[in-house]
């Protein structure tokens, strides 16, 4: 570990960490630009660099952009990356109440804690975790996907989980459009090649969150984001708040690491499960979605802890834990690193170096993030008329830049419209996006699970992880049914009228 640190510690490293992390924060914070796009582009631009420095740049960019996404989630209610959708739920209400500075600070500390603990986990238990992740078969993937939808649906629309679930299953329905992989049969495509390719996640997300937010804000008739006077919050008080919420922090770290290490499931799902768990455990669950500290901390800690954890399967199994990690994996191959089960034996220094990269990037992210908090808050003061065209332009160009398909721009508009309609009727947006993320996974694993059960029916009862997931799923559904949604909704409306 120490050798790896000494080898990495140099002025070049410092320079690369700083610009890459800053670049990541900017890419993540700009609505429309995402971590996957940033990494894919940067892979091309770092061909010529020395291998280790190129990987360093990519990891720092990755960390920066997942963190940067929380900035726009809090300030604009537009999550910068899919991983920050849960952050917006509590972060944005805080900003609207004049607590923007506090929300930015808390999210930064939460990301710092999650990132550091995740980085340490990567160093200590990477191979062990990857082996455990192998126990995750088709049955578990299927159930995890369903649990993700049900938890997100219930958590985002607490007084009306039915609407959350409708949004989630609508997302799954949208994910069925396009060619499926088992028989290459184009579902719901009607001869259109663009539809056969399916609805891509990023344009759908940018439309549903970005465009619909712009339209809603035009409809709200307010001149600025925040009317309440803004309060500055010293860093020390943020620290105190974090320590007060230590249980949430620790729980979120564990959930983040556990979800991140599962191949193919990344920061987004981790944030949701952690958010749901925090709400379940909270003594004041009604504060959630209205500006709860616990909610914000749970989401940001978990997505940051999941990030290093998502690199673990990429390193030790050569299977990425998330979409950006897939690009990272490709970059490692290009730079002559051979991830796989042999890496701990052949190249343990590299794994140690990656841990240090994560730690450097996380620290740089926190330092720059805190320094940027005040200038960023000015965004809230810019009149909407000036902000709207800029965000609109980014929302068009960002998704286009990823694949360079004009069809994706139409998807942005279509989802902007769908998002607007759903918001007007009080449906949460996040389960819809999570449905699109998880659709492919649920679909294939459902059919594989059926095939496996057909072959050996006893396995239903011999899979402990699967049984736990079924229990979580049922608990989430029936806890939702028991509450009387009517009363709480009436109460909320009365509260609003006052």
């Amino acid at each position, binding site marked *: 570990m120490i050798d790896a640190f000494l080898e990495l510690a140099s002025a070049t490293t410092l320079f690369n960490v700083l610009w890459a992390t800053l670049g990541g924060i900017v890419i993540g914070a700009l609505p429309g630009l995402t971590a996957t796009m940033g990494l894919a582009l940067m892979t091309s631009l770092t061909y010529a660099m020395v291998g280790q420095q190129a990987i360093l740049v990519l990891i720092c960019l990755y960390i920066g952009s997942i963190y940067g996404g929380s900035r726009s989630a809090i300030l604009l209610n537009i999550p910068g990356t899919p991983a920050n959708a849960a952050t917006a739920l509590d972060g944005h209400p805080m900003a609207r109440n004049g607590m923007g500075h506090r929300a930015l600070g808390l999210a930064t500390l939460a990301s710092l804690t999650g990132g550091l603990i995740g980085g340490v986990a990567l160093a200590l238990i990477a191979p062990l975790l990857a082996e455990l992740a192998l126990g995750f*078969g*088709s049955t578990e993937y299927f159930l995890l996907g369903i649990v993700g939808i049900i938890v997100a649906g219930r958590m985002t629309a607490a007084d009306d989980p039915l609407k959350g679930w409708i949004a989630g299953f609508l997302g799954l329905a949208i994910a069925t459009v396009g*060619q499926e992989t088992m*028989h*290459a049969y184009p579902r719901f495509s009607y001869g259109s090649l663009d539809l056969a390719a399916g609805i891509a996640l990023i344009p759908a997300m940018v439309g549903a969150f970005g465009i619909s937010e712009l339209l809603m804000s035009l409809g709200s008739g307010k001149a600025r984001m925040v009317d309440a006077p803004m309060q500055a919050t010293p860093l020390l008080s943020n620290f105190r708040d974090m320590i007060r919420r230590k249980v949430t922090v620790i729980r979120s770290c564990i959930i983040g690491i556990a979800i991140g290490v599962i191949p193919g499931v990344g920061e987004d799902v981790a944030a949701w499960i952690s958010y749901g768990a925090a709400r379940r455990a909270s003594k004041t669950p009604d504060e959630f979605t209205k500006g709860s500290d616990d909610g914000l901390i749970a989401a940001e800690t978990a997505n940051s802890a999941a990030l290093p954890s998502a690199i673990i399967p990429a390193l030790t199994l050569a299977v990425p834990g998330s979409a950006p990690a897939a690009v990272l994996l*490709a970059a490692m191959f290009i730079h002559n690193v051979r991830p796989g089960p042999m890496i701990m034996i052949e190249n343990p220094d590299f794994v140690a170096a990656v841990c240090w990269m994560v730690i450097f990037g996380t620290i740089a992210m926190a330092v720059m993030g805190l320094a940027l908090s005040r200038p960023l808050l000015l965004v809230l003061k810019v009149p909407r008329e000036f902000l709207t065209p800029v965000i609109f332009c980014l929302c068009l160009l960002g998704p286009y830049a990823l694949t360079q398909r004009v069809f994706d721009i139409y998807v942005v508009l279509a989802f902007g419209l769908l998002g607007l309609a759903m918001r007007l009727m009080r449906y949460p947006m996040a389960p819809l996006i999570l449905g699109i993320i998880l659709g492919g996974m649920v679909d294939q694993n459902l059919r*594989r699970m059926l095939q496996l059960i057909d072959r050996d029916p006893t396995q239903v009862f011999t899979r402990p992880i699967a049984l736990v997931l079924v229990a979580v799923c049922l608990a989430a559904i029936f806890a939702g049914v028991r509450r009387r949604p009517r009363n709480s909704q009436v109460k909320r409306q009365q509260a609003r009228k006052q």
Partner: protein
Amino acid sequence: MISRMIMAALALTVSAGVAMADWKPEKPVTVIVPYPPGGVTDLAVRAVAADLEPVLGQKVVVVNQPGANGSVGTQAVLDAPKDGYTWLSGGVRDIGTYKIMGMIDTTFDDWHPFIIASMSSVLSVNPDTGIGSVEDFIARVKSDGDKLLIATAGPNSSGGQGLAAIATAADIDPKQIVYDGGNPAILATVSGEAQATTQLALEQAEMIRAGRLTPLAAIGTTEIKLGDLSIPPITAQLPNLPPAENFVGIYLPDGVPQEVLDMLESVWTETLSGSDALQQLCTSRGCGVKPVAGDEAMKSADPAIAAAAWGLYDRGDAKMSPEELGITRP
């Protein structure tokens, strides 16, 4: 005087000839990878992109445009201006069968291929199964039937086509289980959810080296070398195996300026042979460097496409007979 004129004319022709082969791009060249990042084509293309940059004197930008088995990205290149700045990449089997699959209206003749490497599949099993040879494997497929699942990335993937080739040659009916990519299929074989896999050597390499998968044979006529390990060809046991290898390359659509093609053809073999990144990728992960362009590339691709097309037709996946496109049954 006359001789001077002839000299001048000659000089002109020569310089024109040089200028023809000397296409210099004025802006970055885009290579469309019609699959998600991190896959086989993506790796191979990114490995050579770095080596093409100094030759072209411009950036080579790799854009992943996944969807519908690669047909979306392929269509995008067909729709782009034919100015030589938008290149396609992918496997020859895929490009050669889009029309037969009824996906997009293009055949391999519409493209100028620049092949990078040949990719072969390997038949591997989970060590816990105790299967030690190809004969063992065939016997187990016959006796166990449904109990022996073979993981692939779909019937049209290299793994699926490799398995189909084995099934035809050995006259067996193996049970395929499909995953959403080569890597998940291999992981499922390692974890024991599936018992065997026929995915590409490139995807299996690290698991084979770690002893998590036991390679039985290379699905093809030549052996595969993974570093020091050599995997014998399956044709020792199954001599009438249809061609099962695939080639990954870069393709320029018909209609691009001739000088672009001339220039690329003149530097292709040399640049790629000297590419350390490609060499490294291939020797460590079991693919073969095959830097050929023009007619020679066509000649290598044709049998692979014919095998793929007729395989699809025989399985009932084709929308038309390969015969209609002039692809004769091998």
